[in-house]
């Protein structure tokens, strides 16, 4: 267990509105990521996790709230003031220009960041390709000539060349086979230690998050419903949505969780339910849930939950 380290990135009461209809994709999110940790952001499609990431990167303007990076407020600086934060796309193949060779794509990032000397570029690229476990000869290939796992490693190498401090990994193992997933996760852990990185890992796959994250935040419909250390969150989830997510993962022994499955799909941002946003799908909702949004409460130090009924013993922990 890591001790509490300095905060690298924080967000306070962040609100992000999208499009002309000003849909609130992120609505009052606070989180803080400590230097050196792997922070997991979990939620299903449409919960706002990618929008939150783009806001933290400075690619998406925020309507309210404050973002700090290494102690300095960067809410208004846009992308330029946040080179220390970089983003690895979910689909690494599509994130590479199909007309450019891998080597040229890697060199381009360096050029943009002021490293223009050819020899230095080549040296750094060769070193980084070796660091992500690839043959430097791959630099001469085109993106479509690489396998999914290789493309993902290139996506990571491209970002690490820019020497970031915080890397946002968007579904780093989506679409990969189990045997390859393990290799990518192992690589990410090794790179974190070698380059002193901090990760914000976005995923809907609890199996992945459980294995690599120190702390986890669970997001539902634009709000964080539960935050805590990975161990305590998995051992004793307090929010009914976290419980439902955990129960939904199929297990090898074929056991069905006693928790009833959630009914229906998450409602859209155009029709956000009043009160607690989860109440229409919640198995333990009571009348107050429909009228009053729950406050964020401390379960233990470092474990917060936003639920009116978190203190009642869960029927199936």
């Amino acid at each position, binding site marked *: 267990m890591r001790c509490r380290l300095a905060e690298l990135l924080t967000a306070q009461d962040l609100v992000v509105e999208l499009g002309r209809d000003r849909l609130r994709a992120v609505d009052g999110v606070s989180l803080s990521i400590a230097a050196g940790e792997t922070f997991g952001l979990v939620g299903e499609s449409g919960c706002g996790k990618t929008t939150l990431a783009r806001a933290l*990167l400075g*690619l998406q303007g925020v309507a309210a709230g404050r973002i700090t990076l290494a102690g300095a407020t960067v809410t208004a600086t846009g*992308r*330029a003031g946040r*080179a220390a934060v*970089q*983003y690895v*796309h979910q*689909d690494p193949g*599509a*994130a*590479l*220009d*199909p*007309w*450019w060779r891998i080597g040229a794509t890697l060199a*381009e*990032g360096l050029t*943009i*960041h002021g490293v223009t000397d050819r020899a230095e570029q080549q040296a750094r690229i060769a070193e980084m390709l070796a660091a992500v476990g690839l043959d430097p000869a791959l630099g001469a290939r085109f993106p479509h000539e690489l396998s999914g796992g290789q493309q993902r490693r290139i996506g990571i190498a*491209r*970002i690490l060349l*820019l020497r970031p401090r915080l890397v946002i990994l968007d579904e780093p193992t989506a679409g990969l086979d189990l045997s390859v997933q393990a290799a990518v996760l192992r690589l990410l852990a090794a790179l974190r230690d070698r380059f002193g990185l901090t990760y914000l890992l976005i995923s809907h796959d609890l199996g992945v998050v459980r294995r690599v994250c120190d702390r986890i935040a669970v997001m539902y419909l634009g709000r964080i419903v539960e935050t805590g250390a990975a161990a305590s969150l998995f051992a004793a989830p307090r929010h009914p949505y976290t419980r439902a997510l955990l129960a939904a993962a199929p297990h090898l022994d074929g056991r069905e969780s006693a928790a009833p499955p959630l009914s229906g799909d998450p409602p859209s941002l155009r029709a956000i339910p009043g009160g607690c946003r989860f109440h229409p799908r919640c198995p333990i909702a009571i009348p107050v849930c429909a009228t009053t949004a729950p406050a964020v409460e401390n379960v233990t130090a470092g474990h917060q939950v936003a639920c009116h009924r978190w203190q009642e013993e869960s029927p199936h922990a």
Partner: protein
Amino acid sequence: MRRLLRDPVATLGFGLILLAVFVALFAPWLAPYPDDAFDSHLLQRLRPPSAEFPFGTDNLGRDILSRVILGTRDALTVALAVVGAAMLIGVPVGLVAGWREGWLAELLMRVTDVFLAVPQLILALALGQLMAPGIGTAMLALALTYWPFFARTVFAETRRLRGALFVDALAGIGASPARILLLHVLPNAAPAILVRATIGMGFTILTAALLGFLGVGAAPPSPDWGLMVSEARQHLPEAWWFPTFPGLAIFLLVLGFNLLGDGLRDLADPRLRRSR
């Protein structure tokens, strides 16, 4: 390239164009009577095709085969110049309008629409009246009316690519819009531009011939195919060979560009669809 050669129709078009380029490059050496571009020999006027004059002679006694060969160079030069000029205007307009949102994009595309609505022939005829009629005026008119096609093509491609993940990734690592547009969007739009340019070449040759025929294009005595067909009108139906061979040359070259353009479009299409 190998995939192109697997398509027999496109290969035929490509062959026709290669032949035309070869003829244009070596015209003075290929033509049996290279001086017949301008010299007239009134004694041998309107001779039918024979061993001496395979395509016959025209109203001034000039060898039609030589003039068709010499005209290839002009036809290709005009097409290249017009398409090149149209690209120079249309591609940047399309890139900027496709990338930007808001009033500038809106303005550029409305101007494009206005130019798209101008009838080519009427503009050429009007310019011919205003300025001296000649091949330069015709080319100006053609370029002024063809660039909107490039603008629209590039606009659509840029809009498509702007949403592509790799462009988002570039913005993510801090690439400037100019870098993204020139080094990434433009190469990715190149197949579509190439298809448009190929078809535009055929189209330009046809229209330039038509302008020559109407007397607002190339001026006599230059060996212009359209002009030759026009001059032949007074000698029909007796001198059938006079308009037939220049007409055939126009037909074959335009056909070649169109077949190649269609072939290139088929090649480009699956790729475009896949990357969406």
